[in-house]
């Protein structure tokens, strides 16, 4: 990382740390949501953008993490902080198991199977009234006192998100991350040079599940509720759009996408009930005009200007 990026990163973090001092309560809540959605989208990007795996139902792991944390908090007397570790671990296990079932011949096969099996998880959560609260979800979750104020929740979310982003950044930079990107670009060749493709992909899926679970636990802290819609497949789609809109070959793209989508949703919802319609139209525009996302587009322009003109395919 160059000094310039480090400077901007530091400045950004300081601004985020100072935000609750200036902003009204609602906006602090909104920024918390953006941060945790950004974390969620980044965890998806770990497997989608860097791993080339079509993880179409990422919301399942987010929801499982949130429910795991919540059930630990409400149904057991174990130390509350433990719940924030158990939730993500349950999601990671889930990611691994679903990965083992779904990794098949082709990428699309994986995606379709995952959407379907993920929906089963949703259906179970939706119907199991005695355990998950069914379609009502669970409200008023007892949160450790330190985190229960909006500011406490915000700082907790901010710190955990930054730590997780840093770890993911390190993972991508590590030999494991390089191997993962190699598999994305050429699975056959990677296999030939002795990389265990299946193992790498499964590990990536478990890691993505873990960080999605962390995001789910953070939502419990910020919102004090869980509900089945958190793992409905339309939400997975929203996370996908965050990645796509921000730029799914860039590290910070998903975070940017999350910010844009959450801000837009809050803004649009005050005018109309038809958010899905707006989202669908945005998505079409992105697919046709910004296939590499905002950051991807910026990067492309930047590179064209300073390094070398891109050679267009004839």
């Amino acid at each position, binding site marked *: 990382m160059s000094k310039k990026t480090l400077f901007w990163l530091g400045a950004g973090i300081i601004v985020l740390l100072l935000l609750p001092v200036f902003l009204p309560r609602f906006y602090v809540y909104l920024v918390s949501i953006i941060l945790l959605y950004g974390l969620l989208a980044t965890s998806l990007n770990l497997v989608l953008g860097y791993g080339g795996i079509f993880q179409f139902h990422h919301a399942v792991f987010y929801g499982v993490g949130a429910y795991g944390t919540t059930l630990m908090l409400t149904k057991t007397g174990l130390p509350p902080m433990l719940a924030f570790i158990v939730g993500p671990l349950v999601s990671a296990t889930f990611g691994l198991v679903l990965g083992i079932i779904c990794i*098949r011949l082709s990428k*699309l*096969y994986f995606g379709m*199977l995952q959407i379907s099996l993920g929906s*089963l998880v949703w259906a179970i959560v939706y*119907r199991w009234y005695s355990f998950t609260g069914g379609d009502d979800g669970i409200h008023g979750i007892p949160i450790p006192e330190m985190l229960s104020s909006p500011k406490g929740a915000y700082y907790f979310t901010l710190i955990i998100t930054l730590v997780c982003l840093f770890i993911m950044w390190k993972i991508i930079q590590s030999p494991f991350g390089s191997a993962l990107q190699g598999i994305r670009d050429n699975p056959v060749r990677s296999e030939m040079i002795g990389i265990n493709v299946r193992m790498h992909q499964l590990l990536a899926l478990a890691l993505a599940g873990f960080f999605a679970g962390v995001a789910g636990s953070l939502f419990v802290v910020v919102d004090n509720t869980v509900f089945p819609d958190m793992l409905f497949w339309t939400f997975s789609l929203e996370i996908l759009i965050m990645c796509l809109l921000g730029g799914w070959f860039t590290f910070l793209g998903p975070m940017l996408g999350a910010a844009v989508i959450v801000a837009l949703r809050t803004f649009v919802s005050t005018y109309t009930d038809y958010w899905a319609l707006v989202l*669908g139209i945005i*998505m*079409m525009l992105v*697919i046709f005009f910004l296939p590499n996302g905002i950051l991807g587009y910026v990067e492309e322009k930047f590179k064209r200007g300073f390094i070398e003109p891109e050679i267009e395919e004839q």
Partner: protein
Amino acid sequence: MDAVYSIIPAGVLSQVFVGLSRTTILFIVASGLTLILGVLRIPNVAHGSLYMIGAFTAFTVTKLFGGGSAGFWLALIIAPLVVALIGLIAERGMFQFLYEREHLMLLLLTFAFSLIFGDLVKLVWGGEYKSVPVPHIFQGFVPLFGDLPFPLYNLFLLIAGPVVAILLWLLTNKTKMGKIARAAAVDREMVGAVGINVSRVFAIVFVIGCFLAGLGGVLVAPTVSVTLGMDHNLIIEAFLIVIMGGLGNIWGALLGALIFGLTQSLGILIWPQFGIIFPYLAVVVVLLFRPTGLLKSTW
């Protein structure tokens, strides 16, 4: 008929027939999905929405014609055509420009369509439940095996399923169009190279697939309450059926629908609250032994 009951209890038998009627709907919708998947390689998430639009259009058409039998028969013709027209517009207007791009983009585009269709249905028809009356000649019950009452309409469905299957088989195997489509499913470049307009073949296949989704929607309308969100469940079920049967294989869709419909209806007998689990378990078991699905996939 006591002989039959001594082997199978009446409750199980009636559930089997419920499952078989469900199979018909599932097969008709899933065959459209698998057709598009096999030839165009698009996992069309909007397929469920098209099915929903078919059901809502059936409601409007029957209501316009006084809610009688005539209305239903007209709906049976008009609604699938309306849905096919929507498919045609979507394919010519959007999908055809993305065939060269990555599959993810195609899938996301169908996702976008499903969101837009869902909200448009809400905009046009509102959020309330709608019901379509069962046409007169199919009202009432027939006794099966002596005294088991079975709705006449479901019997009609049981006949409709195989008819559609045979027509589809004739279309894909006996017509020139079908042969070209099957060839394009295997190697679209080669088909283009021998001077066939692949783009047009794709459009036709896409439209037929959408027509089937609409047809499924009309046929299901008298048996359920037509409502928003009916697309979500169905698309997931159709995906599983197609995966189980082998991507792109129409007979696979039939077999998958059969397994799905029966495990679903019998599962409810075994464990009422979580009967929904059994079809999913069936899929997992099938995939453990046959990773590419039961029948030969075109992929």
